[in-house]
């Protein structure tokens, strides 16, 4: 069986490499280089950056939004440009961020398989588990990059186009610009953590197929389905188990005092998804016949 031979050689290479060490860092570096050299990655980051720009420009052209209409925080933007980043992340998180994460996570293994490069990766000094870990780290790095793009571009655009000043939080308290920037970074961290479970699902789906588009679409669709289920009151018992459940919980970081309950619950939930789907991906990938 051709698969058996590849598996055997990959295993022996991995044991040899474990002794030499340092291979993981090299592999991770090359994975990140490949990921962030791709034109597609930059196109997706560019699309994410467009969200805050479009919001800010629309408000400049059309005037301030009335209180209580449109996404939350939208009406605050004309008073304070720092809300551009928050509004953009709120707009991006239901669809645009999951779409891009789905593309990256769904592509991890299936993309290599479709290019016929997976078997070479496994012949090169890399064990299967290590390859999975590195691929997952790459997807996680994209989560960080995507979230930061939205928040940082949003803040910069807001800074350019609108007045900047002390920020009114949800609790009605007012904090300084510096404090607000720290909170924006905390929001980026919250959203990044929120996307890690989904990345693990994408990684697993990616090990199931050699057609990357299938894994990408399935991952993005799962995110949408999960959000729809989260909106159905009849399924209340299920809600705390959905990986999208805490996605909008980042608003807790805009309270005074800051509420960390959602952050912690979210981190535990995402870790659960990571463990389950990571283990599934390992099980699948270790037993998979790599033919391409």
């Amino acid at each position, binding site marked *: 069986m051709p698969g058996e031979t590849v598996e055997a050689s990959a295993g022996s290479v991995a044991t040899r490499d474990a002794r030499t060490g340092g291979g993981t860092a090299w592999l991770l570096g090359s994975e990140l280089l490949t990921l962030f050299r791709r034109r597609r990655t930059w196109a997706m980051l560019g699309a994410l950056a467009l969200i805050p720009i479009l919001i800010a420009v629309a408000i400049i052209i059309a005037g301030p939004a009335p209180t*209580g209409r449109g996404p939350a925080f939208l009406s605050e933007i004309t008073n304070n440009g720092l809300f551009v980043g928050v509004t953009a992340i709120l707009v991006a998180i239901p669809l645009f961020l999951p779409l891009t994460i789905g593309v990256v996570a769904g592509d991890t293994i299936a993309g290599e398989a479709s290019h016929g490069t997976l078997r070479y990766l496994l012949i090169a000094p890399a064990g299967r588990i290590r390859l999975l870990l590195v691929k997952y780290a790459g997807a996680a790095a994209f989560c960080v990059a995507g979230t930061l793009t939205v928040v940082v571009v949003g803040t910069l655009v807001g800074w350019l186009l609108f007045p900047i000043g002390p920020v*009114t939080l949800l609790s009605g308290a007012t904090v300084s610009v510096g404090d607000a920037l720290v909170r924006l970074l905390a929001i980026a961290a919250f959203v990044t953590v929120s996307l890690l479970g989904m990345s693990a699902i994408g990684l697993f789906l990616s090990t199931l197929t050699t057609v990357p588009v299938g894994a990408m679409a399935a991952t993005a669709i799962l995110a949408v389905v999960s959000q729809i289920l989260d909106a159905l*009151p009849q399924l209340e018992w299920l809600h705390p188990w959905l990986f999208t459940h805490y996605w909008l919980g980042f608003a807790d970081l805009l309270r005074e*005092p800051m*509420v960390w309950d959602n952050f912690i619950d979210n981190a535990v939930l995402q870790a659960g998804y990571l463990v389950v789907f990571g*283990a599934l991906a390992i*099980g699948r990938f*270790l037993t998979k016949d790599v033919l391409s």
Partner: protein
Amino acid sequence: MPRPAYPETMPAQGAAASRRFSRWIPAIAAPIAIGVAVVLVPMQANAAVDLPDLTPEELLELAASSDVEALSGTVEQTSELGLPDLSGLTGGMGGASGGDDDEGSDAGASGADLDDLMSLVTGNHTAKVYVDGGDKRLQVLDRLGERDVYITDGGAWIWDSREQTATHVTVDRAALEALEAEAEAHADEARERLEAELDGPLPTPDEVLDEALAKLDESTEVSVGTDARVAGREVYELVLVPRDDDTLVGEVSVAIDGDTGVPLAASVTAAGADEPAFSVAFTDVSFAAPDASVFAFTPPEGAEVTEHEVPIPTVAELEQLKAEAETGVDAEGTPRPIVHGSGWSTVVELPAGRGPAGLDEGADAATGDPDAAEGLGDASAMLDSLAQRVDGGRLISTSLVTVLFTDDGRVLAGAVTPEHLLAVASSGR
């Protein structure tokens, strides 16, 4: 790790299969481990609560003697009243009434109040509670929003982040103190008179409690339930079961902290139901004094600030109110609510010409006040979608409360069965 050399006789297929299976082990073990943890951790938390046994009297005394001055914690409220989730409907109404502010603040206020009320009744909420002596704060954590109530010596602030409105409620301290002094003087006088009549000192608080319990026992079975754990603390459970077939209330349960006597949870279960229809419980609580900064509130720039001073009635006005209550008609000549029955099956009736009556003929006829009519018009549209047509009126029935709008304009409400409410409506008693 060197691969074991397989015996020549063993089929390679079988070895491969067993190796394949062993590689799925983590994938099988991870969900199982998580599942076990999910089941075991709450069991662990609930296991082995055994507080010293108390009678209901002792438990009530423990609660009454509670001297907790400061606490902070998270409260979860859930309600399953059997009403549809109206947040979308009422949310639209709130937006509409917020848009036409100039139309009269009454209409806006009644729309918003109804909105708040409905969302509080039908939804689930998480809130943070902070208490330190006279300073109190309730922080309702809405999704992407927040409502706050700050109560300090300087009055109360009510903040709504979605509407960006702050309401400052103050009372006239001097008037309040005068009233209190008057009331105390009256109380002293009343006690002296009572003591003279009884020919001895007044009953002690213990005796009062016993008497109250005895009276309660006529309508309600009071017992101490199983000890449990709420917010990680060991609690007693006080269970009230109505001795009344007409009420929808099956059981009221209050969890009282075994250490401090603070109530940590309360729930109301409908008759015949397993799950509470309404429950409020701390999910975590601390009795350390919260930081003073959590009670500070200054309305932010750009927010709409409303000042509202609560009028304190003088003693003379109170006397007048009392007299009105006795005659059943207030100063403007509109009839006051009538109370039928007592205890659990109490029914309150708003006579015709008061309240959101006349679902069919339109709300404006009922009050003649155009501002109120606008708010009530919204309300009546919503009620129409909820109410169910019955003989002689429209009925809204939830698992705990039944409301009847009769065709002749009366409104009856109570925690009773629809049959009982209809009987009260037709007999007028």
